[in-house]
Every structure is written in C-alpha cells, then in structure tokens.
C-alpha cells in the first residue's frame, strides 16, 4: 500500500500540532450537500446569476435546458480509471432544476465554465425589471 493513513499522526509530537489544528477546524457546513450541484443564485437590477460548483466536468458534458419557468442543469461525472484505494469523489449522472419566479430572456442567456465553477447569467426581460410608477396628478 502506497499511502498509509495509519501512520499519519504517528510521529508525535511533531504531528500533534497538525492533529489539533485539524480538530479545531471542523468541516464546513457547505460540505453537507443535499442537491447536486450546489448553487448560489443572486439577483440584481439587470439579471439573475447562477453559480454552480461542477468540478471535473467538461463544458460539452454539461447540458443546460430551459423549460417554462425553470432551467435544468444536467450532466455526468466520469469516474477515474484504475484500481481504487479510496473513493470519495461522487460520480455518475446529476440533475438540478432551478425555478424562477420572474421572466428571463432565454436567448440572451450566457454560460461559462472556469476552474469547476459554472456561471450562468440570465438577463431579465424588460417587464421583470423594477419599474417606477408615475403617480398622476389630479
């Protein structure tokens, strides 16, 4: 066995510091994922932006489809080839549906993928932008 995890903390006390260090910094909540991929969605005046974490997936393997008021992010994560000693990274097909309560312009939607982060910018249609209502004087 090439990587012996049992020996990780064996040479005390040098590694004691490392051990305690890791104890005081427990795993972040964001690691407990329910839906895949995890997303951040923000809205501003002009558009709605979706950020999705998709490491290890090529651009051509991500399928983005609009239906009436939702966007479907679909794809598959390929497992590594070879003999496994440890497998923690999820693999297989995934799908997530994002619903909108406002209208977005599907034709002007842009998506890019960088460092495993998928960014989708959905411009709002004009009627969905906040409008100033003039109050007419009598």
């Amino acid at each position, binding site marked *: 066995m*090439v990587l012996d995890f049992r020996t990780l903390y064996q040479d005390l006390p040098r590694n004691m510091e490392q051990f305690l260090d890791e104890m005081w910094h427990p795993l972040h909540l*964001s690691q407990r994922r329910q839906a895949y991929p995890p997303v951040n969605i*923000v809205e501003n005046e002009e558009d709605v932006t979706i950020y999705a974490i998709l490491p*290890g997936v090529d651009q051509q393997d991500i399928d983005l489809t609009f239906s009436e008021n939702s966007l479907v992010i679909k794809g598959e994560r390929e*497992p590594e080839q070879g003999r496994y000693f440890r497998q923690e*990274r999820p693999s297989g097909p995934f799908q997530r549906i994002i619903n909108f309560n406002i209208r977005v312009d599907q034709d002007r939607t842009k998506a890019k993928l960088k460092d495993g982060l998928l960014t989708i910018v959905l411009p709002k249609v004009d009627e969905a932008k906040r409008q100033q209502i003039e109050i007419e004087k009598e």
Partner: protein
Amino acid sequence: MSATRDTQERTMPRVHPAADIVQRDHSYYIVLDMPGVRKEDLDVTVDKDVLTVAGETSYPDIQNQKQWENEFGNVYFVRKFTLSDAVDRDGIKASMKNGVVTLHLPRAERVEPKKIEIESG
C-alpha cells in the same frame, strides 16, 4: 509560509477536499476536487513523508447582492497524505483542470518486481 498569510487563510473555513486514490499502470494518482481554486493559488508540497495539497477558492463575492440561494462560500482547501517508500518523491507531478487536481505519483524503481536471471554454471 509567512505568518501573515497563515492568518488570512484561517479566516476562511478549512475544508478537506474529496479525494480518490487510484493505481494505473506503474503509478498512483491522487485526484482531488478543488473547485474555485485558481492554478496559481494551488500549493503542493512534500516535506519528508507528508504531501500537502492546499489552496483557497476565488468565488465571486455575492454578499452585497440579493440572494436567492446561498449554498457555498469561499473555503481554504487543505489535505495531507503520508507517503510510503513505494513512491518516487522526486517524480511527483501535479496538474489542474476544471477545478480538479491530479497528482501523479510514480512508483519507486525498487518496488517494481524484478526477475533474477539464473546463470548457467
């Protein structure tokens, strides 16, 4: 690592990236999911027997925008592995693509099976 940088890193949550370890041909591969980490922010070091992979994410800041969903934030990824003698430490290579780090660990020469020739006497 300077003290200043160390302090900065601690402001982000520390997260162990998910890792796969596989053997292929005459090498071992450690594959880690580290999305949002730029190539230039990735740190791979070998100190004696300990291989450390670390890097912080550079997700866009969404704090001042109207949020519909907030399921992830910036983190400091760090993970340590203890290497055995079966790995050729000088031959370790790292690459990064689509937020995935692949470490290539070639097997040390001496652990390859060797056939001993029997001399005819």
